[in-house]
């Protein structure tokens, strides 16, 4: 409901004069990521909101910037989703961590770091959650090089033939062509927003 998020915006502007906020489709965008800590502290403790339950911390890649989205609920007042967003650029993506305030953010921020590469400053133990140590890259970014599993490359053909598998001629030819042109068989990822 738009009125809910408007009341949050007004309360925050009254408490922190000069804070830059924007309403985006039922959610509140904090223009400066460093505001996040004091905003979260205010909504957790202020008697008007009492958002004591941080339900979901997730990240999203929008090609020009990365976004972290927070969904807050209030268990005391039983009120509905309050959505906060923070945007950071791709290189040097740093967002203050909410773990000191909400313990539910601990594992979720680790997951967002693992899959997107956003660094959460102030997190007690920021390391990869799902992928193993030594994995390079962050898989859910839109410019992650994901290998196409349907196309063989030259080194795949070599490995298969060394193990006694007969590779069809067309596949060998395609792999040699790829190698000659210096390209890799990758899944296409969107470089600009997809149109319907």
């Amino acid at each position, binding site marked *: 409901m738009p009125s809910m998020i408007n009341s949050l915006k007004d309360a925050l502007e009254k408490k922190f004069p000069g804070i830059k906020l924007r309403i985006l489709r039922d959610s509140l965008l904090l223009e400066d990521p460093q505001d996040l800590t004091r905003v979260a502290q205010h909504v957790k403790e202020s008697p008007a909101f009492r958002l004591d339950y941080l339900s979901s911390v997730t990240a999203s890649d929008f090609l020009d910037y990365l976004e972290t989205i927070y969904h807050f609920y209030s268990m005391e007042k039983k009120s509905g989703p309050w959505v906060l967003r923070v945007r950071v650029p791709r290189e040097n993506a740093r967002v203050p961590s909410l773990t000191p305030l*909400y313990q539910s953010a601990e594992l979720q921020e680790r997951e967002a770091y693992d899959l997107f590469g956003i660094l959460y400053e102030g997190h007690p133990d920021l390391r*990869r959650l799902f992928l*193993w140590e030594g994995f390079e890259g962050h898989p859910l970014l839109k410019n992650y090089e994901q290998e196409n599993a349907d196309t063989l490359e030259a080194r795949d053909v070599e490995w298969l033939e060394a193990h006694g598998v007969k590779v069809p001629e067309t596949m060998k030819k395609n792999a040699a062509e790829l190698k000659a042109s210096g390209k890799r068989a990758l899944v296409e990822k969107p470089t600009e927003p997809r149109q319907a």
Partner: protein
Amino acid sequence: MTLLDEIKKDGEILEINFGPQHPSTHGVFRMRVLLEGETVRELKPVMGYLHRNQEQIAENTTYAGIVGFTDRMDYINALSNNFSYCLTAEKLASIEVPERAAYIRIIMAELARLINHSAAVGFLLNDLGSFFTPLLYALRERERILDVFEAVTGSRMMCNYFRFGGVKRDLDEDSLAAIKTIVRKFPRFLDEFETLLTSNEILCMRCQNVGVLPADLAVNAGITGPTLRASGVNYDIRKIDRYGLYDRFDFKVPLGKKGDVYDRYYIRILEMRESVKILEQALQALPAGDFIHPKTAPLLRNPRNFKPPVGEAYGRTESPKGELGFYLVSDGTPQPWRCHVRAPSLINLSALEAMCLGQKIADIMIILGSIDIVLGETDR
């Protein structure tokens, strides 16, 4: 210096690995435990052994194709995942669900809750050492419900049954009669189960005052579901969000007092009784009508035509393990831009260390069993 540093200086610490291959960790789950004698001083969970990157798979699949992948997250009760995902997609595209379809969805969701809680209690008792007796009694009842799932949806476990705007196939008369028989016989099974377990002295002595979760820590750590309600916090999403016609049914929300393992076991038995009540009301009031909204019925044949408007939606349901939420971002194409799963099993583990500190090594398994995690959901 903290207590841990003092103990480490004395050289009494033993690090033990509850490895990913373990019969009691409910999947491939690893815990690194620092022990002083038999008491736990630190516990760090390590996960990711079942990570299949389903969020990236979802970006390359149509919205309707993702329903088959959601089954595989919480594989013990696959239908609740379908429910949560279809609810989110319907919120994104503003699709309504006809009445009969909504009742069928509630019947399936409550049957899924019954199979989940009976398996959870059975496996908790397995971890406690009563080697298979309560588990097999629970699985005997669960088999009847799984037969109904196979007759209606086509598969016992990977049901793939819910579609946007309703369900895939209608409930026929035989299945309805089978569900009515199950609902009639279930309270008697629960009475027998309780006689076996609830006042059993060994269970009481091992489970009471073990793994206490205080209510404020539970709320702060984002814990939901029976684990939260056993600590005394009244938060059931079926009553708060009132999604999918749950406000027409009359059921209570059981609450625990102390938040120990015994409360978490007993609250699941009470929740099964409430589910039976909901099922009785739903079966009595099941109306005739469409099993899928006529506007989305053509999507069954042409999934590529489902192009929700640009935007995002966060939908959540009360899955038997907690709050299962889906966050979908749409860019107008038939494939989502971002699909994130808010998995209760992952977030309920935030408080595992706090619950296990100071307990004995044998209590770790029952505390983990009482939280009721499934690794398919934790790792996705």
